[in-house]
């Protein structure tokens, strides 16, 4: 189904890389040195992720291994199957707006359990990529400038997240089918 979409996805990244490199060369940017300079940030970033991910992944896998997660998922199954929403992804949908690193942990957990090319694996990846951590953005941005009354901000942010999650389910179902 919609094979060309997959093709676009695959072509997009190499073409973007090509554009960035050619434009940089055109503008006489010392490309290689600049690349190395920017790349250094990636090292510190991935190291700083380690404690977050260890903490979250261990908690999730304890929760899963004990059978508690399956129990909850099974209890919600009748309701969710009415909505055509795969219940395995429910924890991710709930945590995604609350904590980015926690969501990342759940996403990688789902991908490792169900496989990266399964429907659930792809859906988790799409949800993770298409929405952001509303609570984090709200806390950091408003906290830093001392906004005390948030008005409609949280409501708007969470509703946008909900739309994103529903859109992810619909789009992934359309593109990859229910396998």
């Amino acid at each position, binding site marked *: 189904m919609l094979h060309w979409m*997959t093709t676009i996805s695959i072509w997009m*990244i190499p073409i*973007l890389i090509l554009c960035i490199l050619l434009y940089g060369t055109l503008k006489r940017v010392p490309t290689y040195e600049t690349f190395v300079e920017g790349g250094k940030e990636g090292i510190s970033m991935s190291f700083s992720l380690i404690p977050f991910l260890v903490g979250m992944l261990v908690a999730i896998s304890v929760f899963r291994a004990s059978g508690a997660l399956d129990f909850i998922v099974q209890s919600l199954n009748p309701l969710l199957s009415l909505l055509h929403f795969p219940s395995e992804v429910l924890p991710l949908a709930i945590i995604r707006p609350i904590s980015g690193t926690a969501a990342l942990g759940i996403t990688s957990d789902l991908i490792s359990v169900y496989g*990266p090319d399964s429907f659930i694996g792809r859906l988790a990846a799409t949800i993770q990529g*298409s929405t952001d951590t509303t609570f984090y953005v709200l806390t950091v941005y408003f906290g830093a400038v001392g906004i005390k009354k948030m008005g409609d901000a949280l409501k708007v942010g969470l*509703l946008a997240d909900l*739309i994103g999650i529903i*859109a992810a389910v619909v789009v992934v179902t359309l593109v990859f089918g229910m396998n």
Partner: protein
Amino acid sequence: MVNYIWVGMFVIGIVFGMINGTMDQVNEALFVSAKEAVTLCLGLMSILVFWLGLMKIAEESGLLDKLSNLFKPFMRWLFPEVPANHPAMGYILSNMMANTFGLGNAATPLGIKAMEQLKKLNGGKTTVSRSMVTFLAINTSSVTLIPTTVIAIRMNYDSHSPTDIVFPTIIATAISAVGGIAIDRYFYYRRKRSGRE
């Protein structure tokens, strides 16, 4: 909030393990998953280094600024209360660009700068302004172009085509951004009707 969720998962998991007789699985899960988390981070490193390096080139060459100019007319419509040449506009655009290209850590300081400027525009009040809500709505639906981290995870677990979720992600994120903007406008007009703006 996150603290409670995190502790809750451990407590429920361990108690459930006691009742359910799955304690040996719980024990095994503890150590296997901790190791897996570290392996995952090391797997992430390769793609993060590569991508952030490339983005640095895009930044230095002025490609990001060029893209910003492209969106100026749209931004004027989105933020009617922000004057076109106000520094707030520049910061908002840079923040969106950083988000679009998956520069999460670059996006945060830019977002805070944007908020500072929006607060100035609002007369320095500690209440939220219309532009701030709009900015947040866009930010939370984060129009991502390349979900770097997700691709790295899929590579890590040997996906046949780790990047095949890029297009679906862009579609989903665009829908949530449009939805976010629509909801934001709806709430604004509702406030206006009730005389709060």
